[in-house]
């Protein structure tokens, strides 16, 4: 039970910190958050710099501890987060690395690491939300290709993506979890229509994707035919287990800013608000320690993050919403000004208890897979 980092890890941290110090001043100005092509160029440009400096594959180089240090240092330095690279770097990439053939790994991983390829996620469907496995998008084999027809939704960055990690039903007669396959679909294939959806935060973060007889080569299937659900669980465990690490660091920074802002604008005199921030401080500190706990487990066992990810996600998604509610209390009337960052983040935080598995589904996972309670309705 120790929290000190090894000399080698500290050396990695020092080198990274130095590199960030020299590299960040060279970065161009951040693009308009609503200009997705500009955001893609900016995020991919940053990924390219990381790649050239040898940090490109830090998210899946096998050392969870180095990854933790990377996220801590980049966030502390105010460096860009993965942004448009989210699905490729934190999601599809690790899945292909774990489940793909040598050819598939060679074909898809390098472009993601170099910042040349952006991926999106085609999992959710209008009729299959929390019950993801009930998806209906069909893929019918025709020679060396699947012909895909269906409708995906909540597909982040679809209009700027080159590839889509796509779940399709390849055996409509099999039990619902057993007839699914995982495909890599090129987003420029004929038959794909992307319609952006406006979120309650006013942004067009994600889209609906309509698929009309899209031909996807059989060679683009990752894992065996009808074995896509297992591959998906590998993906989801990445998503829930470690994808939020950088955000927790960011939340801790925001919390400090909230306290200092409150001190400046006089709201600090309110003991109820002070105690509320103190409570959140304790919680985010604990979440950070929980991450270190999960990372220690992952580093020691070499396994992808397990159900500990559900415990973390449940707690984090609620804490994040409470954080931005507290931010509104600190801001007072300014909390209703969408020209400011915290009110916008407050709206965005509402997605956290829904995205990547709702809190209700996460609790069922914890109850059944960790606590061993019987399955039921």
């Amino acid at each position, binding site marked *: *039970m*120790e*929290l*000190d*980092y*090894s000399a080698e*890890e500290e050396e990695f941290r020092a080198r990274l910190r130095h590199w960030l110090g020299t590299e960040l001043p060279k970065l161009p100005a951040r693009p308009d958050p609503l200009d997705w092509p500009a955001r893609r160029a900016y995020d991919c440009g940053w990924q390219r710099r990381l790649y050239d400096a040898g940090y490109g594959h830090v998210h899946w180089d096998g050392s969870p*501890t180095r990854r933790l240090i990377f996220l801590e240092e980049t966030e502390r330095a105010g460096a860009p987060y993965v942004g448009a690279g989210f699905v490729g770097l934190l999601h599809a990439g690790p899945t292909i690395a774990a489940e793909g053939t040598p050819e598939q790994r060679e074909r898809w991983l390098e472009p993601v690491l170099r910042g040349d390829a952006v991926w999106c996620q085609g999992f959710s469907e209008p009729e299959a939300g929390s019950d993801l496995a009930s998806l209906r998008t069909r893929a019918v084999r025709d020679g060396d290709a699947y012909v895909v027809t269906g409708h995906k939704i909540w597909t982040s960055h679809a209009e700027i993506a080159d590839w889509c990690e796509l779940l399709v039903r390849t055996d409509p007669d099999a039990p619902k979890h057993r007839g699914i396959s995982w495909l890599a679909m090129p987003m420029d294939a004929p038959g794909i229509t992307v319609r952006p959806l406006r979120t309650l935060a006013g942004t067009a973060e994600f889209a609906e994707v309509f698929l009309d007889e899209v031909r996807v080569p059989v060679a683009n299937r990752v894992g065996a035919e009808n074995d896509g659900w297992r591959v998906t669980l590998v993906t989801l465990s990445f998503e829930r287990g470690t994808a939020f690490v950088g955000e927790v660091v960011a939340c801790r920074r925001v*919390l*400090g800013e*909230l*306290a*200092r802002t*409150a*001190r400046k604008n006089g709201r*600090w005199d309110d*003991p109820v608000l*002070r*105690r*509320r*921030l*103190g*409570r959140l*401080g*304790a*919680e985010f*500190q*604990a*979440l950070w*320690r*929980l991450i*270190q*706990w999960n*990372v*220690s*487990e992952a*580093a*020691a066992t070499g396994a992808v993050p397990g159900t*500990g990810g559900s*415990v973390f996600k*449940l*707690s984090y998604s609620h804490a994040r919403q409470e954080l931005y509610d507290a931010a509104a209390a600190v801001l007072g009337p300014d909390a209703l000004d969408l020209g400011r960052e915290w009110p916008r983040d407050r709206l965005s935080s509402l997605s956290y208890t829904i995205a990547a598995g709702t809190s*209700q589904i*996460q*609790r*069922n996972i*914890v*109850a*059944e897979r*960790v*606590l*061993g*309670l*019987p*399955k*039921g*309705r």
Partner: protein
Amino acid sequence: MDFRLTDDQRALVRGIRDLLGRRFGPDALRAAAGADGAGELDRGLWRELGAAGFFALRLPEDAGGVGLGLPEAALLFEEAGRALLPGPLVATHLAAGRVPGAAEGTAVVTRADGGLVEWLDAADVVLGVGDGVTPRPLRSVDPLTPLHRLAYARLDTGDVPDAHEASLLTAAEQLGSAGRTTALAVAHARVREQFGRPIGSFQAVKQLCAHMLVRTEVARAAVYAAAVTADPVEIAGARLLADEAAAECARDCLQVHGGMGFTWEAEVHLHLKRAWVRAARGLGGAVAEEAVAESLAATP
């Protein structure tokens, strides 16, 4: 960095869990709580704890101690909390090496904390109660923790010796209790049937249990880390989460047990009552929240 328990730490936990399971298992707990002399301390058990190194754990080996640190102490107190072991454990542990007999378990030491004194009549040595102060007995909510009230409340906890360590060890006890009530709720939900099915198959019950685990695991990360860093602000935060986990998990456990949970038959009520008593020890609630808030505003 490897935050996980070492093999030695796991062995330590197993050892104390075996000892407590043998000497103070659930049946002994119920018997003690139901007995007329519930306010009496089991001196034999106290000496056994002393012999096992419970109190001398952090004394150097050349002083007759075990030479271990705060993380190991936290693990022991977690087990004590899980078993709901009665007695002024924290005060005696902190007095080891300073009060003769404390380290060996031959002396029972208590101390004033948060305006209360636990186990006053059973103690050989009482710390922190000045001359001329007459503690007034309360009819304690917890049948296994006799309480006396001091005429004044110590709001400034700075003058209580080892206040932060005491708070951390209390947090560890709370954590153990939260883990125990979570396990009790889950065990009950798996076997208790209603409408022809185990109640644990119903989402409403299942989600209650899952929430208990989440609260416990978050508190665990906080308590273990605070034991490693011994940082006063981190200890305050851990205490906050552990107090909450113990009380809320006990409540939820009671809920899962339904009507039986409201009776003396189930052991749940004992956990809830002890959680309340522990939460009243100094450096709890508001003090902790203010301490963490202050550190947030101070960080550049």
